[in-house]
């Protein structure tokens, strides 16, 4: 083998000397590492990813991040406007907000809110406030921030028609609205992979039937189907059941596209030389699918899933907004936006639209993230 060894040494020289440390790092990198390196260069996607992560963290620890419980109300402060938070007083970190006072409009005699700069409401980080049961398991009363005196008004994004804190409700809503996307996608992912996999792997008549079925389903307009299905959900159902049902309804529409993607990936892979090589290695069917085929397109699937979450979130918001989705006392962004169905309300109390801002930010962030993932999904171009 001496000839080969000389050959090797010379090959190294020809390629410009032995590889450097950073080259080796790339050469032994798995596809996920390569994808991460490629993704990292996509600044907008990184930003989107960070935002998405932030929102999901908010949702997961809603009890802690929300200053008060979403059911806490104070009829004294109905439609109170947002307060501005100040962090420093007399050069020291001591957050506070100003209090409210009523003003009578001298012309119309209408009662309006105004910020009263003479009243200072001190705030405290890691405040002990409303008691809660974290995830229904652990008792606690710790909040990231809250008024030192529990009876003081603290409405960062204003109050709604019952004097509830819009900010706290948005955080609690994230829990429902964001998980609808995740659970919905998980369901459509499972159905899509199964149906698409069967279609692509079995082929023949089965494939033909499945494809025709998908074509029929896909041709039915989405919104009426949602509306019809959502309208069939009995009013007597518990909030949790309704939540689950709405998720299923949303995902029933989403799986078709994914099934098609999965099928076409399987079909394309069947033609790949490396799949034939594995077949000639005698790789059994199960291992062929899990070890050789799925890793080849998993990253693409993850990217397209990320891109389909926004659709789910928007779907939930739309249904709830129309009153056909989730219903109070469950709180989601769509449910909150039900209050804004009247233009007059928006004109006078614009802060009620903040849930829509949250929807827009999350949807955009997910799209940025998904775009970056899609670009990074194939690191071998």
């Amino acid at each position, binding site marked *: 083998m001496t000839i080969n060894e*000389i*050959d090797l040494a*010379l*090959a*190294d*020289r*020809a*390629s*410009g*000397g032995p590889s450097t440390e950073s080259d080796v790092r790339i050469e032994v990198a798995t596809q996920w590492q390569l994808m991460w390196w490629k993704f990292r260069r996509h600044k907008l996607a990184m930003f989107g990813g960070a935002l998405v992560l932030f929102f999901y963290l908010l949702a997961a620890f809603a009890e802690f991040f929300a200053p008060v419980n979403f059911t806490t109300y104070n009829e004294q402060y109905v439609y109170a406007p947002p307060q501005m938070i100040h962090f420093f007083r007399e050069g020291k970190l001591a957050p506070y907000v100003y209090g409210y006072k009523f003003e009578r409009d001298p012309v119309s005699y209408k009662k309006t809110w105004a910020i009263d700069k003479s009243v200072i409401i001190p705030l405290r980080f890691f405040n002990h406030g409303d008691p809660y049961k974290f995830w229904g398991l652990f008792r606690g009363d710790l909040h990231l921030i809250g008024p030192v005196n529990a009876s003081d008004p603290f409405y960062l994004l204003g109050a709604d028609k019952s004097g509830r804190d819009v900010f706290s409700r948005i955080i609690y809503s994230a829990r429902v609205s964001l998980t609808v996307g995740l659970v919905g996608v998980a369901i459509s992912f499972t159905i899509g992979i199964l149906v698409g996999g069967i279609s692509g792997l079995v082929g023949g008549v089965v494939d033909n039937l499945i494809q025709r079925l998908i074509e029929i389903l896909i041709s039915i307009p989405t919104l009426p189907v949602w509306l019809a299905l959502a309208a069939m959900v009995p009013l007597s159902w518990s909030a949790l059941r309704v939540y689950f049902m709405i998720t299923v309804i949303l995902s029933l529409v989403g799986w078709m596209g994914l099934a098609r993607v999965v099928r076409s990936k399987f079909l394309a892979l069947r033609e790949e030389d490396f799949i034939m090589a594995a077949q000639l290695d005698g790789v059994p069917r199960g291992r062929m699918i899990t070890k050789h085929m799925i890793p080849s397109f998993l990253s693409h699937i993850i990217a397209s899933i990320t891109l389909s979450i926004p659709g789910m979130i928007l779907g939930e918001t739309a249904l709830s907004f129309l009153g056909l989705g989730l219903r109070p006392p469950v709180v989601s962004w769509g449910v909150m936006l039900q209050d804004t169905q009247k233009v007059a309300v928006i004109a006078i109390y614009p802060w009620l639209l903040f849930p829509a801002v949250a929807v827009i930010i999350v949807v955009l962030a997910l799209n940025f993230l998904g775009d970056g993932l899609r670009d990074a999904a194939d690191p071998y171009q």
Partner: protein
Amino acid sequence: MADNNNLLVQVEDLKIHFFTNEGIVRAVDGVTFDIHSGETLCMVGESGCGKSVTARALLQIVHRPGKIVDGSIVLYRQKSHDQIEKVRISDLEPKGREIRSIRGKDISMIFQEPMTSLSPMYTVGNQIMETIMLHTKADKNQARARTLELLEFVGIPRPNRIIDEYPFRLSGGMRQRAMIAMALSCNPRLLIADEPTTALDVTTQAQIIDLIQGLQKDYDMGVLFITHDLGVVAEIADRVAVMYLGNVVEYSDVYTIFNDPQHPYTQSLLRSIPKVTATREKLEVIRGMVPSPFRRPSGCPFHPRCPKAMPVCSEIEPKTISLTENHQVHCLLFDEDAKKPVREMAS
């Protein structure tokens, strides 16, 4: 042969660099050659040697992030009977009016895969007619008549039917013929053929080569033929430019290149090809492989693989040395000046 009256294109010290995220790639690094009408210049080399990029530069279609950074490409354009206009192609705007009037009219190009340059949306006839109408004053009927003539000329059977076919309905050989017909539609002075037969079978390849050679004779065209197949080179070339990593390492007439090659790369390359005329014997190999463009070796880029490398080869970039009037070598073995000082230093 180097009669200046029929000089078509003169390329001097052309440098094309690619500015990528990973660094600058010197894809073409000081290339000099010229093409005369009626002659075939073959550019031969392995992948990554810069032969295709050089060809594309002649039409200013080097794609980003590539850029012509130095050197000149001059087209000698026949203005009238005895008036010749010099156009510096290397200075023209890639999207400008002037280069567009040159493309397809003075210089035409055919590619390895005709499907990439024929649109699948239009019939073969439509695309050829459009080229004709773009560059001449022909109306639609005249253009169609000329197209039929061309299709017949390039050996397409039943041109009346093929003219209304879409490219994907044709076989590889027929597509290449259609592509050639399109390239010839305005009687170009120079035809650039970038690996036009690589995707074809031997018998089809022979047909296409015959066709190009026949057309060249009829039209007195210059042909720049790019290939990696030394067999094809030996069959059609008048002169040969052997390229390696962005340099023309040897440049001479075809007989000199094959019978008396001087550059170690040309010598090794010729010995490493299996020949249909020779029986089983061990092939000579060029050790190692073509280096990554990002790790271009210092000095002469061929030195790590060169059987005749000297210590100086890793230090000095070779110059082009003229052995005879029409035989240039890009190698330090022939550069007495470069060899001397190092010897003195060593002793």
